[in-house]
């Protein structure tokens, strides 16, 4: 790049004594500012004028900038002051109203979200429409009058699965029993036993049924499994036994996440489950019960929500129910485990 050095040298004297025309002065300043310092080493006048110009520009820019900054700061401060002194009452009222709204919203949200959570899960209790049961058939097949009589041609409202946790006590999911007038437990030999609810825990979807039938008590007393009081780990392989229909159904899967996002008392399982398996036990490879199926997670294929046995255990103990502690399934093959367990898993019919 070439610079018009000679011209600048000629003009610098005129510039300093203010004898340049306005146009020439502008051009002179513009040209001078673009010349690097090292080219002006021997031109003291030019270097001086350049410094003067730079000084002028910097200083002007800085002054302008500072005035803008102080203007904005001042204005902001004044504005805040103004707003505060004139709108004190309005602001206070607005704050109070905001506070109230926040509380009301919080409360209603909590209320409704807890309602929605139940709806989110496809409850697995099977709605039975028109299941007609003939008392004669059952009486004929058992030939035992001690068994609880079932009314002729009644329609079961819903069905689920339950399992024995202690002599005469059956654990099942609470939503299965929803609005039931009477509840019957059906064992693998199609025998019906009348049952009463003795405990409901809403937060865990747990209900405990009591069967007082003597033949039931004498038949089912050596429970082979225990209910695990520790939490199970992510990835643990599990299986489940339940009654989606009239026959016992086996499925297996694993723990997909150790905690559901919305409910810390539940596992997310990867396990195929059908309606009617609500209340089915989840069993690990040692034959320990680690959870109870409650519902399906609708957006996840084969996603099942199961309440943790550790939590259920605690809740039961609080209510002075102490589930079976001995486990005789340890180390057995899966078929044997299923065989021994199946007698203690029942259909629950609600009328």
């Amino acid at each position: 790049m070439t610079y018009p050095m000679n011209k600048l040298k000629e003009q610098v004297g005129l510039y300093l004594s203010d004898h340049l025309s306005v146009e020439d002065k502008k051009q002179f300043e513009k040209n001078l500012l673009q010349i690097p310092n090292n080219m002006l080493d021997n031109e003291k006048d030019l270097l001086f004028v350049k410094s003067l110009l730079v000084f002028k520009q910097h200083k002007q820019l800085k002054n302008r900038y500072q005035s803008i900054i102080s203007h904005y700061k001042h204005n902001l401060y004044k504005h805040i002051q103004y707003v505060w002194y004139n709108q004190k009452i309005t602001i206070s009222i607005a704050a109070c109203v905001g506070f109230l709204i926040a509380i009301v919203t919080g409360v209603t949200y909590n209320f409704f979200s807890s309602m929605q959570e139940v709806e989110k899960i496809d409850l697995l209790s099977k709605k039975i429409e028109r299941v007609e049961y003939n008392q004669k058939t059952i009486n004929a097949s058992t030939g035992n009058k001690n068994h609880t009589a079932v009314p002729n041609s009644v329609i079961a409202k819903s069905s689920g699965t339950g399992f024995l946790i202690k002599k005469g006590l059956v654990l099942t999911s609470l939503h299965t029993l929803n609005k039931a007038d009477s509840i019957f437990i059906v064992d693998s030999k199609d025998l019906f036993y009348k049952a009463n609810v003795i405990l409901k825990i809403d937060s865990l979807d747990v209900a405990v049924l009591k069967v007082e039938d003597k033949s039931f008590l004498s038949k089912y007393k050596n429970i082979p499994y225990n209910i695990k009081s520790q939490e199970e780990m992510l990835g643990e392989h599990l299986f489940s036994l339940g009654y989606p229909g009239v026959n016992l159904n086996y499925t297996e899967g694993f723990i997909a996440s150790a905690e559901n996002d919305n409910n810390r008392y539940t596992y997310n399982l990867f396990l195929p489950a059908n309606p009617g398996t609500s209340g089915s036990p989840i069993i690990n490879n040692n034959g320990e019960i680690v959870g109870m199926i409650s519902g399906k997670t609708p957006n996840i294929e084969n996603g099942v929500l199961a309440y943790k046995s550790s939590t259920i255990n605690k809740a039961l103990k609080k209510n002075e129910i102490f589930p079976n502690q001995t486990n005789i399934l340890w180390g057995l093959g899966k078929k044997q485990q299923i065989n021994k367990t199946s007698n203690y898993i029942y259909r629950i019919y609600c009328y």
Partner: protein
Amino acid sequence: MKYNLDKEKELIRQFVENHHKAVETIYKNSFNMVKVLILQMGGNDNDAEDIFQEALIVLYHQAQRDHFELTSSISTYLYSVSRKLWLKKLNKNLSVSFVEDTDIFEKYSSKLMSEDYEEKELLFKKMEKSMDSLGEPCKSLLHNFYINSWSMERIVHELGYNNTDTAKTQKYKCLMRLKKIFFNEKNVKDDIPNE
């Protein structure tokens, strides 16, 4: 951010021609971006203001050059320059070097900074010192004439000269004095005592 390049170029033109509104518009559009940047990188409000001022000066110098062409929005430009300036300041103060800045960003932002920015900064500091050591009435005469852009008539009126000719003569004399001081002064860079 959406921007209109033609509008930005017009703004730059006004900025170089010292329109008062231009600085304000640029400040309004870009300052918050720079402020957030400086606050994120361990500075405070005052640092942000200083850095933004320096960045404005860099932009001003750059925009004066014949071959200057704006390729991004002014905000982006000022952001990049501010970042570079701030990192430079940090490196100077803390002797910590930021590894990330040595690669692509460095190349980009060094292109943005005019190469003679530091030269000009040096001249400015030297001139500022010279001006400070210049006594009255020269100081206020030159200051008002150059920085505040007063007309000769106003200078005559406000500073109490007989007529414009005496004021002009006085101004010339003052300039010569300033020049003497300017060249007798040691370079500001050499001010650090070397023992």
